[in-house]
C-alpha cells in the first residue's frame, strides 16, 4: 500500500485541529451555541450579526473559553515537539520532557517564584511578575535536563536505564523542592502549587496565549532547522559528524530549545506529562521517523490531542473541572509501560539498549 504523502497528512491534521477547536470553544461550564459564537465573533470584527447573546456569554467566550482553547493548542504543540526533540537527542523513543526532569525542574522554578516571588523581587514583583515565572521555570528545567542528559550519556552512548533512573532521581528532587515550597507557603499559594502541579488550563488568559504562542512558534521554527541534523543523529553521533554536523553544538542547542518550549508552557499551565511521549510515537507508527515530519506533525497532533484532553477535563465533572495532567497521565502512562515492555523484548533479542 502506498503511504499517504506528507502534504495529505498535514492537511488532514489541520482540518482535524480546526474541527477540534471549533467543538472545544462551545463546550464548558457555560454552554454556548454556534449561532451565539458566530455572533460574538462577528461583533468583534465589526460585522453585522443576528443572534442574541448575553454580556456574560460574550465575556465567557472572549475572556475564558477562546484563550483557553488556543493556549491548549499551543501547549500541546510545544510539549509534543519537545518530546520529538528529546527522543531524537537521546536516540530513544521512550523519552519525554516529563521523564527526563524538564517539566518537574520547571515546576520547581515556578513554585519558587510563587512562594518567594515577593522576597526576591521586592516591590518590583508586579512589574517583573510576568517574566519572573518563565525565567525561573526555564532555569529549573534546563538544569535538571542537563543533569539527566549528562548522567545517561557517558561515553557517547545513551544508557536508557541510567536515563530513567536519573530522571526519577531528578524528578524526586524537584518534586521534593516543590513540596517544600508548598509546605512553607501560605494557604492560597500552596493550593495553587498543588493544582498547578497536576496541570490545568483553567488559568488561561490572553497574556498567556501571547507568551506561550510566541515561544511555541519560535521554538518550533528553530526545531525545524535542526531536523536534518537530528535525522543524521539517529545513525549515531559519529555518523552525524561524518555527515558534517557539529554534534556537540547541536546537542546543546536542542536542549536549550527544548527547555525553552517546555519551561514557558509549564510555567503557565503546570506539569502535563506524557503528551510528548504519545504524540511522536503515534506519528512514527503512522508514517515515519523523519524529524521534519515529526516536528510539524507533532505540533498539529499535539494541539489536537491536548485540546481533546482538556475537553474531557471540562466535561467529566462539569460544571467543575478536572486537572488535565491527570487525564494525560491516565492515558499516557499505560502507553509508556507498553513501549517499555516492547523495548525490553527487543533488548532480549540482542538489541541495542546496552
Amino acid at each position, binding site marked *: 500500500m502506498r503511504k499517504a504523502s506528507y502534504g495529505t497528512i498535514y492537511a488532514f491534521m489541520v482540518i482535524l485541529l480546526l474541527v477540534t477547536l471549533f467543538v472545544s470553544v462551545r463546550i464548558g461550564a457555560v454552554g454556548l451555541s454556534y449561532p451565539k459564537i458566530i455572533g460574538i465573533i462577528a461583533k468583534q470584527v465589526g460585522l453585522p450579526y443576528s443572534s442574541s447573546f448575553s454580556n456574560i456569554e460574550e465575556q465567557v467566550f472572549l475572556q475564558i473559553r477562546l484563550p483557553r482553547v488556543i493556549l491548549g493548542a499551543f501547549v500541546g504543540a510545544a510539549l509534543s515537539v519537545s518530546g520529538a526533540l528529546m527522543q531524537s537527542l537521546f536516540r530513544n*523513543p521512550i523519552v519525554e520532557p516529563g521523564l527526563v526532569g524538564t517539566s518537574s525542574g520547571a515546576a520547581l522554578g515556578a513554585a519558587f517564584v510563587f512562594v518567594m516571588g515577593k522576597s526576591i523581587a521586592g516591590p518590583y514583583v508586579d512589574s517583573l511578575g510576568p517574566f519572573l515565572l518563565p525565567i525561573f521555570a526555564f532555569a529549573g528545567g534546563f538544569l535538571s535536563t542537563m543533569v539527566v542528559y549528562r548522567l545517561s550519556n557517558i561515553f557517547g552512548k545513551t544508557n536508557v536505564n541510567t536515563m530513567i533512573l536519573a530522571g526519577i532521581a531528578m524528578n524526586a528532587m524537584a518534586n521534593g523542592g516543590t513540596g517544600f515550597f508548598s509546605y512553607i507557603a501560605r494557604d492560597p499559594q500552596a493550593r495553587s502549587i498543588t493544582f498547578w502541579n497536576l496541570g490545568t488550563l483553567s488559568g488561561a488568559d490572553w497574556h498567556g496565549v501571547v507568551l506561550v504562542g510566541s515561544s511555541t512558534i519560535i521554538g518550533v521554527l528553530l526545531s525545524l532547522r535542526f531536523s536534518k541534523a537530528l535525522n543524521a543523529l539517529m545513525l549515531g553521533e559519529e555518523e552525524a*559528524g561524518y555527515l558534517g554536523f557539529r554534534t556537540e553544538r547541536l546537542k546543546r542547542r536542542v536542549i536549550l530549545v527544548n527547555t525553552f518550549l517546555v519551561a514557558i508552557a509549564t510555567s503557565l499551565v503546570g506539569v502535563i506529562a506524557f503528551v510528548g511521549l504519545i504524540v511522536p510515537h503515534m506519528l512514527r507508527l503512522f508514517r515515519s521517523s523523519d524529524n521534519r515530519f515529526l516536528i510539524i506533525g507533532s505540533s498539529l497532533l499535539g494541539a489536537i490531542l491536548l485540546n481533546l484532553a482538556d475537553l474531557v477535563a471540562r466535561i467529566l465533572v462539569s460544571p467543575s473541572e478536572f486537572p488535565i495532567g491527570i487525564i494525560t497521565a491516565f492515558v499516557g502512562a499505560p502507553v509508556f509501560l507498553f513501549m517499555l515492555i516492547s523495548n525490553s523484548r527487543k533488548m532480549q533479542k540482542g538489541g*541495542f539498549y546496552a
Partner: protein
Amino acid sequence: MLEVRKIHYSIGGNKIIDGVSTTFGTGGFHVIVGPNGSGKSTFLKIFSGELRPTAGEVMYDGIDVCSMKKDALARIRSVMSQNPELHFPLCVYDIVMMGRYPHFGMVHTSHDDEVCRMAMDQAGVSLFADRDYLTLSGGEQQRVQFARTLAQIWDPIIGKNRYVFLDEAVSHLDLKYQHQVLSLARGLTSQEVTVIAILHDINLAINYADRILFLKKGKVSYDVQEKSQIKGEIIRDVFDIDAKVIDSGMAGRPVIVF
C-alpha cells in the same frame, strides 16, 4: 593526497596511536589491517577528522583538517562505520538521502534524488527503497549504508579530491556482496577517489589493495606496496599466528593460509 604526520593519541594514559606518519596517495586503494585493539578504528576516526589527535597533523591536500569546516569536509569525504545503530523505524531511501545532507539546505533537489537512486542501484538495494531499515538483515543494512556513503561523495568537485573510508564495511556481507562492495570501492579509485579501508580478511585485502598497512600496538609495523612482499613472517609478527603464503595461480595474487 591525505597525509598524516606524527599522530599520537592517548586516552586515560593508554597510548592508542603512537607516532604514525604516512601518506595516502590520491586514487589509491589503501587497506589497513591489524589485530583487535591495534588502533585501526581510532586511526580512521583521526584521519577522517572526527577525533582530534593528542599530537600530530592530518592534512587533506595540504590543508590541516582542523582548519576545515565540518560541512565542507563532509562534501569531499564519506565514512562508513562498523555498524551504525538505528533505534527508529526509517525507510531505506531516507537513510540513503542522508548522504546528500551536506549538499542541500532544507529541501533536496531532483539531482539528489537521482544520485540516491543511482547509488542504491550500485549497492544493489533499489528493491528495498521503501522498506523499513530495521526489518533488513545485517548484510542488507550494510549495503544500504554503503549506498549512503556512495551518495555522499557522488559528484566530483572541481579542484578537490574525494575520499571514502570504510571501517570493516564488509564484515556482515556474504562472499558475493563482499566482492561487490569492494569492487565498487575499487571502481571509485578510477575516478580519482582515494579509498582507505579497514579489513579483517587478509586475503580480501590482498585482492583489492594497492597497498597494505599493518598496524600493531598503535604503530605502523609494515607498509607493503607490492603483493609479492607479503611474507608469512609479517603475518606471524602482526597477528601472532602461523601462516604460509602460497601462490593462488592467479597472477600476482598470493593467498595466505593458516
